[in-house]
C-alpha cells in the first residue's frame, strides 16, 4: 500500500518539530480515548443484544397467547368480529413517542408507547362475546407493549452498531496511519537538524583550522622578517655581505670570541 509510512512534507526547522510533537501527543491521547469509547460501546452493545434475544422469545409467547385470545373471541362472537373491527378504525389511540438517550456519547432512540384519546369501545354490531373481545383487546395491548420495547431495543442496537464501526475505523486510522506518519516526520526533522548541526560544526572547525594556519604563517613571516633585519644590521656593521652575515648568524653556534 502506498504511503504506508510516509512523512509529512514540511520544512525541517525547530518550530515545526515542536508543532509536530504536539500533534503526536494529541493523536496519542485521542487514540486512547477513542479506544475507551469503543470498549464502552461494545459492552452496551452486548448487553442490548442479550436483552433483544430474551425479549424476542417472550414476544413469541405473548403473540401466541394473544392470537389464542382472538380465536376465542372469534369463536364466541362469530366471524363478524373482523369486519366490525375493520369498520371501526378511525384514528389510532395507541401511539409511540420517541426520545433520545445518551449512552457513552452516542444518541440512541428509545420508544415509549402511550394512549391518546379513549379506546373505541363502541363496537356496535357485536351482539355477543363482549367479554372475550375485551380480553382479546387486553392481550393485544400487552403484546404491543412488548413489541414497542423490542422496537426501541432494535433501533438502539442498529445505531450502536453503526457508532461502533465508525469509532473503530477512527481508532485504526489513528493507530496505523496518523501516528506512524507523525513519528516518521519527527525522526526526519531530527535527522535534518542533526545534519545541519554537523555541517555547522564542521564549518566551524574548518574555519578554526584556517585561522590557526593563518596565524602560524604570519608568525613565521614575522620571524623571517626579524631575522633578515638582524642580518642587515650585522652586515652593515661588519662590512660583509648579507650572505656571509647570514651564515655567521645561523650556522655556527654563537662564538664567544665574536664581539659585536
Amino acid at each position, binding site marked *: 500500500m502506498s504511503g504506508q509510512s510516509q512523512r509529512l512534507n514540511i520544512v525541517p526547522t525547530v518550530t515545526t518539530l515542536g508543532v509536530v510533537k504536539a500533534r503526536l501527543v494529541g493523536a496519542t491521547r485521542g487514540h486512547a480515548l477513542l479506544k475507551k469509547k469503543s470498549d464502552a460501546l461494545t459492552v452496551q452493545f452486548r448487553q442490548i443484544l442479550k436483552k433483544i434475544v430474551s425479549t424476542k422469545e417472550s414476544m413469541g409467547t405473548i403473540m401466541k397467547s394473544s392470537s389464542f385470545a382472538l380465536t376465542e373471541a372469534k369463536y364466541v362472537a362469530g366471524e363478524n368480529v373482523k369486519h366490525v373491527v*375493520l369498520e371501526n378504525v378511525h384514528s389510532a389511540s*395507541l401511539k409511540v413517542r420517541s426520545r433520545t438517550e445518551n449512552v457513552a456519547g452516542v444518541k440512541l432512540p428509545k420508544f415509549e408507547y402511550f394512549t391518546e384519546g379513549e379506546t373505541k369501545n363502541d363496537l356496535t354490531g357485536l351482539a355477543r362475546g363482549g367479554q372475550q373481545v375485551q380480553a382479546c383487546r387486553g392481550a393485544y395491548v400487552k403484546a404491543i407493549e412488548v*413489541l414497542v420495547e423490542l422496537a426501541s431495543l432494535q433501533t438502539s442496537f442498529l445505531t450502536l452498531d453503526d457508532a461502533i464501526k465508525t469509532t473503530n475505523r477512527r481508532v485504526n486510522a489513528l493507530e496505523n496511519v496518523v501516528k506512524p506518519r507523525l513519528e516518521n516526520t519527527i525522526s526526519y526533522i531530527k535527522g535534518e537538524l542533526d545534519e545541519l548541526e554537523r555541517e555547522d560544526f564542521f564549518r566551524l572547525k574548518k574555519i578554526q583550522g584556517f585561522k590557526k594556519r593563518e596565524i602560524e604563517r604570519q608568525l613565521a613571516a614575522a620571524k623571517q622578517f626579524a631575522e633578515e633585519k638582524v642580518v642587515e644590521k650585522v652586515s652593515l656593521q661588519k662590512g660583509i655581505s648579507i650572505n656571509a652575515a647570514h651564515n655567521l648568524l645561523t650556522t655556527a653556534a654563537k662564538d664567544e670570541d665574536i664581539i659585536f
Partner: protein
Amino acid sequence: MANRVQIPGRNSALIAMIADEDTITGFLLAGVGNVDLRRKTNYLIVDSKTTVKQIEDTFKEFTAREDIAIVLISQYVANMIRLLVDSYNKPVPAILEIPSKDHPYDPTHDSVLSRVKYLFSAESVASERR
C-alpha cells in the same frame, strides 16, 4: 458527524402493520389502526391474493412516511420481500418481525438477528438460548 441520522423526537408516531387478517384484527382491536383524511391506512392485510409487488410498495411507503415509527411485519410476509427487508438499514422506523398463527417465530430468518450472527461467528444467537 455524530448525528448523521435524524431521529425525530416527535410526540406521536404510528405503528404500521403488514400481516395476515387475524393479526391485523387483533391489533386494530387494541387501537393501533389509523385512517387519515385521505383514506390512507397504516396497515396492510396480506392474504392469498396480495401480490409481492403490492407488499413491496406498501413496505416502501411505510418506511418513507415520516409519522411511522415502527413497522410490524409477519415473518412469512417478510420472507416474501426478504431482499427489501434485509437491505433496509435505517434505524427509524424500526422493522419488527412478528410470528403469525400458522408460522411460529423463526429466529434464523430474522433480518436483525441474522446480521448479529455474522458479527459473532463463534457464539451464535442460537447457541445462547441453550
